[in-house]
């Protein structure tokens, strides 16, 4: 990965400041860039959800709740980041949920078989890498449609996970992997209201930051955007289209492996049925965050907001108690649909204007 590095840190800081400024002045953003409308909408929904939750149920804007929001959804943030890369190029990765299942089952079984836990963690990530590589090669070298290629790897991973084990595999209580979810109290508030940051959350935040730098500050990132906007133009410009297209699936697969690490560490066990429907959550997070499903435009920070919106929504559904938890997928699906429609509207307006 080649960086155009003259003053990387300063550039990063100014661009971060730019992004924050543009988020703050939402109305100016709309005038400047219609594609940013869904991201602005996501931010608005997030603020509305937080306000509504605080007023209706209370205890949302508290260090303890915010900590657990991040702790319980570190995996979703990581998955959404990986999905952002793929969707930016105009592809899709339906395999992430199954890859998490395969990778976590394999990891726990290895760790329990006496393999060094850190090697087990590396193997977990490597399993994701291999599945991503397979999908990427199918898509790029053999012209298989992305959703078919990743549907195939989705079933492959699910089937392999079921071959390994069909019962919950429990990590031994003294396993070092559990350390990834150790709750480090940063600020000891009153009662349970502490700011708690386990390594898993730090991993998730680091993933977002690295992805931000890669997407906005490296050639690889620019190529991903160019590829999604117009493959032909990208090719004519001499950009490494083939390499980048394989790479985004490898990134998504590897991050699914990483998500499996944080999820397994938090839960302490793994099962072959883990992660059913997570691809919808990840796609929804990305789309709600303002990345166009057709590729070429979007923000990885938006995906973070999208993931938080979904996490918060699930939290509010549990807090409310009157909405059956089974309907969560309907609500997520509905939100995804609304945002996809919003995107179509934005694109249609841009074509006219």
């Amino acid at each position: 990965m080649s960086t155009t590095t003259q003053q990387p840190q300063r550039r990063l800081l100014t661009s971060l400041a730019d992004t924050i400024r543009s988020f703050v002045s939402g109305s100016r953003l709309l005038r400047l860039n219609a594609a940013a409308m869904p991201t602005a909408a996501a931010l608005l929904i997030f603020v509305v959800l937080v306000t509504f939750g605080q007023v209706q149920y209370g205890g949302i804007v508290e260090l303890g709740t915010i900590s657990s929001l991040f702790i319980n959804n570190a995996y979703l943030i990581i998955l959404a980041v990986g999905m952002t890369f793929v969707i930016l190029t105009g592809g899709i990765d339906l395999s992430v949920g199954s890859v998490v299942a395969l990778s976590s089952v394999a990891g726990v079984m290895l760790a329990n078989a006496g393999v060094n836990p850190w090697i087990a963690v590396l193997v977990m990530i490597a399993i994701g890498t291999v599945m991503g590589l397979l999908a990427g090669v199918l898509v790029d070298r053999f012209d298989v449609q992305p959703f078919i290629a990743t549907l195939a790897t989705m079933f492959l991973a699910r089937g392999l996970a079921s071959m390994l084990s069909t019962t919950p595999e429990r990590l031994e209580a003294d396993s070092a992997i559990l350390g990834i979810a150790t709750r480090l109290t940063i600020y000891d508030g009153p009662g349970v209201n502490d700011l708690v940051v386990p390594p898993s959350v730090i991993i998730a935040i680091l993933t977002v930051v690295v992805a931000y730098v890669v997407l906005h500050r490296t050639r690889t990132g620019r190529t991903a955007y160019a590829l999604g906007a117009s493959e032909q133009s990208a090719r004519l410009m001499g950009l490494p289209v083939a390499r980048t297209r394989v790479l985004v699936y490898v990134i998504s697969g590897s991050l699914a492996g990483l998500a499996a690490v944080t999820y397994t560490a938090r839960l302490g066990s793994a099962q072959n049925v883990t992660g059913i429907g997570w691809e919808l959550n990840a796609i929804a997070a990305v789309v709600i965050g303002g990345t166009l499903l057709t590729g070429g435009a979007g923000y990885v920070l938006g995906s973070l907001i999208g993931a938080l919106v979904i996490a918060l929504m699930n939290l509010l559904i549990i807090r409310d108690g009157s909405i059956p938890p089974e309907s969560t997928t309907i609500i997520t699906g509905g939100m995804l649909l609304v945002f996809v429609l919003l995107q179509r509207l934005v694109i249609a307006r841009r074509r006219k204007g």
Partner: protein
Amino acid sequence: MTQTYSRLRAGLGALAHKPYIWGVLGIVALLIVNVTRDPGYLQISVNPANGYLAGNLLDILRESAPIVMISVGMCLVVATSGIDLSVGSVMAVSGAVAMEFLQAASAPQSTMSAAMALLLALTVSSLLGLVNGVLVAYVRLQPFITTLITMLAGRGLAKVITGGQNTSASSDGLAWIANGRVLGFPVVVIIAIALALLIGYLVRRSALGMMIEAIGINETASRMAGIKPHGLLITVYLLSGLLAGVAGVFSTATVMTVDVSNTGYLLELDAILAVVIGGTALSGGKFSLGGAVVGALLITTLDKTVVFLGVPSAATPAFKAVVIIVICLAQSSRVRALFRDRRGPVRMKERVA
């Protein structure tokens, strides 16, 4: 004598050019594997007590009935260069509706209740298909994202309908459809064959089939040629939903219980696989209903064989994923070019579509 021989040869030659010849050969190969394990595998016996035909072949036919239904629907959707990922979930919704209705009905054993349950289940599944169709035809959403949403939201809907329970009911009418026999032959098989023949007759004896293929080749061009794609697209998705509903009734009525998380789970891949094995390319523009039926039979035979050979059934998705990857590779232009170069002149026809 020579005439019979040459006619046989011509017949075999025609069969060899059918798109589904590989499917037929696959079934034969799998059956041979089974026969080597158990020489009596192909035996069909008549149960003297009730005159029922029994045997592994009949089991395969019976179990293939739901898959034949969703494959026929999927085949037409794929021909328009779309995809319907929601069929498995629609099966669960249809089963849930039928079982909930019968459980609440005052006289569940009456034919009237059975008919009402059937009608209600098929209406709800058609509605889900209609939603897909409208979103694809009028809102112009990508088919896979539309049906991905209905796939995941549909599973949630099934759970909401039954309140998360696996509802059981009893109804002689539905049980007869699923387990009954006419002249010793399973009713589900007769219905499935009849429906497949009816649809095949409708699309091939009228211009419908050609119009569907025209949409798959180039929607804009088809509109300019005077075809109205909107109505046809909606019809195709609606039909796919309806057939998935039939499949849902078939598979839940066998045990008179809907398993909201497992009824139809992962069956969308089976349908896609059946369609692709049958020689229908996922890029659309050409379809073979007969091929889809052969594909569905092959998949059921594969399922049965895998279980017969002692592999846990949860692992079958992995085998199917391998099959679909191989088929996608075989269809890709890169692999084809590899073979074409060895076989001599380039066939110009292939890339026109």
